[in-house]
């Protein structure tokens, strides 16, 4: 088969996600939607003392959106909020096509999405999880309230 963007790392995260599950003790939660693909995820984070101790997502959408969210959680679980935000900034820059070799390595498996920089129509899919995480940190009250509301359901 020819060169494909759909490499094993990507398809594996899509078909066998490690973090696609409920997270009952999440204290932050936010929904992210990409209307162009119909991708829809709910990101859940458990943050203690400024550190992401656990995370999960639910939802459905194209392989890129789902795998990207899974890779992101692989990367940020166990890190501080600041580190996660820094990595997110690097990821977004990678998608725009401006990162260094070292930065690419820092992203670990998420770096497998580097070719999205040549696929403008898929950028929104790739960044959906990351944007949603950024939004959680930008407006923690809202994300905390959503997590609270989800617990009551």
């Amino acid at each position: 088969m020819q060169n494909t963007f759909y490499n094993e790392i990507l398809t594996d995260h899509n078909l066998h996600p490690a973090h696609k599950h409920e997270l009952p003790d999440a204290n932050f939660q936010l929904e992210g939607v990409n209307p162009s693909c119909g991708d829809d995820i709910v990101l859940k984070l458990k943050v203690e003392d400024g550190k992401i101790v656990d995370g999960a997502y639910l939802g459905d959408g194209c392989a890129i959106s789902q795998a990207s969210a899974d890779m992101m959680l692989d990367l940020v679980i166990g890190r501080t909020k600041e580190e996660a935000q820094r990595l997110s900034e690097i990821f977004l820059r990678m998608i725009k096509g401006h990162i260094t070799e070292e930065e690419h390595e820092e992203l670990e498996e998420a770096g497998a999405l580097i070719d999205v920089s040549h696929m403008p129509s898929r950028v929104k899919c790739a960044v959906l999880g990351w944007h949603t995480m950024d939004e959680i940190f930008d407006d923690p009250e809202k994300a905390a309230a959503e997590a609270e509301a989800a617990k009551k359901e």
Partner: protein
Amino acid sequence: MMITQDMIDKVRADFPLISDEFAYLDNSATSQKPQCVIDAVKRFYETMNANPLRGLYRISVEATDAYEDAREAVRKFIGAKSTEEIVFTRNATESLNLVAYSWALGNLKAGDEILVTIVEHHSNMLPWQMAAKQTGAKLNYLYPDKAGTITEETFRKALTPNTKLVCMTHLSNVLGRCYDLKTFAKIAHGQGALFVGDGAQSTPHMPVDVRDLDVDFYAFSGHKMLAPMGIGVLYGKRELLDKMDPFLRGGEMIDYVTTEGATWTELPHKFEAGTVNAGGAVGLHAAIDYYNKIGWEFIEQRELELTRYAMEKIREVPHITVLGSDKAEEHHGIITFKVDGVHPHDIAAMMDEDGVCVRAGHHCAQPLLKFLGVPNTTRCSLGFYNTEKEIDRFIESLSTLRTRMGYADR
């Protein structure tokens, strides 16, 4: 008719973007353009570019003639009575909005009802949602069966004594099914309702005669039928167009203007405010000439052959569901499908890697897909210049998608 390989090759050679490099199977989104259309537009700008209908010098007169000749070609193409009934717009969407703003807003009131089908493209749904909201009329939806069939009986049942307007597509851009507008328009008229036909997908694939259909309005786009983007048509019965207010106001659509107001010029110019897309109209004229040259017999037969071939092949691929009818005759080259476990955007991206152009998404028909219970689908849409070889390429790609996504089958 006996279609030879030579005829197929000749037709393909007419289209500069059709080659073995990639298989263009997104014809319902927009068709490819034959060289004669591209040349006609080029010639317009090279030899007679001037603002039509305004200048009193030679090339402006030529531009005007070319523009009005195109109108006559369209009139003949769809069998309208007079060129006054042919309004040039940008596309089907604008044509439908014209009817919504200029007819519906002025003629509907609370208590009236509009009937549209759930099959409609957003362009034949949102204008009527707007008109209903603004006038207080009620918007009713007609639901076909899951294969997309609308029988005479379903149609009659969906009408009420208050239905004043029925808006319906001639050919569905998702299911590929053709609807019997002639019968439905007759029933609607019997109840005192007007009938708007959306011809965006039908005009490229079958001969249309608006007088035979007896629809009151009929909208279509040039770009789906070999012509350039940015030129579309609204057909309207003269008695209706006459009584309607203009859609847009400005230059070239008035007789007299004072500081108090204006009197509108005669049809169809009343609806063509501002500088028109004469180059586009000339391109549409060339596209119609090309249709006439190739002939409907060739086009319809070839498209049916290709549809049959594609439907047969697609049935052999596991994990695929095709929307709409099982019969190739009811698809008109449009095959919308889903692949278990693979998202349409990933399908389209992988097919692109294989040099196959298909459309993924909701096809501007979200309510229809919701009704069918599929949020997203992929569509392969064929044109008469496609080939069995291109379909093979599509099927080959289709057969590998699940393995490429990591599924263990095959």
